[in-house]
């Protein structure tokens, strides 16, 4: 049976990708950012996940012009890195897991989530920067990836609570997939940042750290945060944090925190990163 073994959250700032691609990770500005990911890189070489369900948002690269899907699930064999106006990032092609993606597509719609299914799309920094942060500069990504693109750009986005419910449904769908797969789920984007208007540059460390705390033991409170509250407190782009709730919900009731990192700034953004494991005790209790 497939099983979700861990959840990871991280910001996905484009400048982080540019710093990696241009060999700037050891410069004084960037080193503190990348130091925060040393632990997870080593940990991932031991965990060796087979598949990552990667929740991210498309930044007007494949979506958002002609079609604005609330939840878009990638069902393709492969995804090319997008050219976002400066040439595509020099990173490997992202390979999908067609059978698990098809299973998710089936199960999640049966569970009343009206997904958009993507049989072709390019993937932008929202997806490739997290892969670079977890796996470094490699010739081939060591995992298959199922992209789950969430609209966090055009109001109304899905609510945080709806994202939570989708995460719960993903957990059930993965558990019912017969192949023995080590699956991780990642929530990306955030933390607080605003990329527009005179309020650009907003950073709210109190909100961000309360959010990180809440992922461990106050998830009911996180589910209640309204879109307006995200916009006011975490900036117009901070609402990307709803994607972290998909990840968190898929891990079940209790989690163990393996790693936590917070740093301001990377370009315009507060960087947050957390690694969580479902608590084994709860799994055992369910089985009993």
């Amino acid at each position, binding site marked *: 049976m497939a099983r979700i073994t861990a959840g990871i959250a991280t910001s996905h700032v484009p400048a982080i990708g540019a710093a990696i691609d241009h060999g700037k990770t050891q410069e004084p500005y960037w080193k503190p950012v990348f130091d925060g990911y040393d632990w997870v890189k080593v940990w991932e070489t031991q965990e060796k996940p087979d598949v990552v369900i990667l929740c991210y948002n498309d930044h*007007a690269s494949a979506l*958002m012009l002609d079609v604005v899907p609330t939840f878009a699930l990638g069902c393709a064999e492969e995804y090319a890195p997008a050219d976002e*106006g400066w040439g595509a990032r020099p990173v490997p092609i992202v390979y999908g897991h067609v059978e698990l993606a098809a299973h998710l597509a089936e199960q999640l719609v049966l569970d009343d989530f009206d997904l958009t299914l993507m049989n072709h799309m390019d993937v932008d920094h929202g997806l490739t920067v997290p892969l670079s942060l977890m796996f470094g500069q490699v010739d081939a990504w060591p995992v298959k990836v199922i992209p789950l693109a969430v609209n966090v750009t*055009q109001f109304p986005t899905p609510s945080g609570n709806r994202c939570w419910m989708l995460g719960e449904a993903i957990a059930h769908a993965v558990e019912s997939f017969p192949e023995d797969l080590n699956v991780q789920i990642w929530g990306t984007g955030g933390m*607080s940042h605003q990329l527009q208007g005179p309020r*650009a540059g907003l*950073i709210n460390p109190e909100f961000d750290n309360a959010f990180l705390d809440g992922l461990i033991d106050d998830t009911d409170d996180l589910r209640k945060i309204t879109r307006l509250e995200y916009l*006011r407190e975490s900036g*117009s782009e901070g609402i990307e944090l709803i994607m972290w709730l998909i990840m968190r919900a898929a891990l079940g009731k209790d989690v163990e925190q393996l790693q936590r990192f917070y740093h*301001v700034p990377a370009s315009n953004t507060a960087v947050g990163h957390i690694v969580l494991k479902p608590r084994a005790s709860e799994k055992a209790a369910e089985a009993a």
Partner: protein
Amino acid sequence: MRTRPYPLADLEDIPGTTVFTAIRSREAYHLHKFCMSLMDAANRDAFRADERAYLNRYRMNEEQKQAVLGRDFNRLIDLGGNIYFLVKLSNTDGWSVQKAVGSMTGMTADEYAAMMRAGGRSPEGQRSIREDN
């Protein structure tokens, strides 16, 4: 009437912020189509060679074209634009996203970068026009 957790008019109550909605998305459709065309290197070259002629290929209104030519990102957002589309333009110019974003704050690029290094803009006084908090 169904109840909502807050009146949608509250979206207009955040200082210095424009919430990107379905009607704004429609207003900016052709502007955004232009922006996304810059994801192709040949199109970037054609735009650089003659910006005005390239813009005339798109059914944008004249105000939108003028704002593109002036790289006036606040104005482009007033005219319906969203930053994720608009950075295709600043990326084409070789600007960092920080430079594009900072250009909307009334600060110089150096001042904005310094503010970010010092921890960014505090949310204090920036949450609500009405409540002034």
